[in-house]
């Protein structure tokens, strides 16, 4: 709801818009559904390039939840670095099945989840971050 509301100049869902970045479409749809069921507004990107395109168009986003390994010019960690540099107000959570925890720790992330993760755990952390 928030993108249309924001697009037409009304107040978007304050503080509760998540940009989900995931290249596997069935995973993306399933996760987006669960996030919407939590009451979050969810925008979907299939690559980091799409995610940056959304952010560069000044679409209001509160948190980016991203996979790591994706096709295109940037992976999820590259996206996280660009977000820190260009959109510092946006929280960044990375979810990956392939990334060692020590690599994750070296990046400036608001959260990191190792796949497979229990959605309830992710939901709890997102609620804490978004309020």
């Amino acid at each position: 709801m928030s993108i249309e509301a924001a697009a037409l100049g009304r107040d978007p869902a304050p503080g509760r818009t998540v940009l989900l970045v995931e290249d596997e479409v069935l995973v993306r749809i399933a996760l987006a559904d669960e996030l919407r069921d939590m009451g979050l507004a969810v925008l979907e990107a299939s690559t980091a390039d799409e995610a940056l395109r959304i952010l560069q168009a000044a679409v209001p986003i509160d948190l980016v939840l991203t996979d790591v390994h994706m096709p295109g010019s940037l992976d999820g960690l590259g996206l996280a670095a660009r977000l820190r540099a260009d959109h510092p107000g946006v929280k960044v959570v990375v979810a990956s099945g392939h990334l060692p925890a020590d690599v994750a720790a070296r990046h400036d992330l608001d959260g990191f989840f190792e796949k497979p993760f229990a959605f309830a755990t992710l939901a709890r952390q997102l609620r804490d971050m978004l309020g």
Partner: protein
Amino acid sequence: MTADTSTVAPGKPPSVLVVEDEVLVRLVIAEYLRLCGYRVLEAANADEAVLVLKHPDFGIGVVFTDVDMPGSMDGFGLARWVRRHRPGLAVVLAGTLARAAEAAGELCQEGPAMAKPYEPQAVADRIRRLLATQDLS
């Protein structure tokens, strides 16, 4: 280039699959259709769309697709795939931005209207402004 959407089964409103490679267009069209009450799934290209359409549980009744898309199939190829493998599905081909906004408006006029949908012109204007910010960057 619209197909007749009256082939959708009565009762539960159908889900709409929006297939569009330009992400700013895709997200505005998808949110617009959600605002008027549809459940909307999004695919960035025809290959993603086929994966979604092969999944048994989504209840998709309408495929709303761009024409020019990268990948193994364009919108016409996807429409042919749907006619062959999912003959009950309605396909809306929207080859221009204006046509996409107009077709989304038609779906909202016909469809489950839980809230008054915004005018298609507003959708087209918003997409144009979002794309214009990209061109300047």
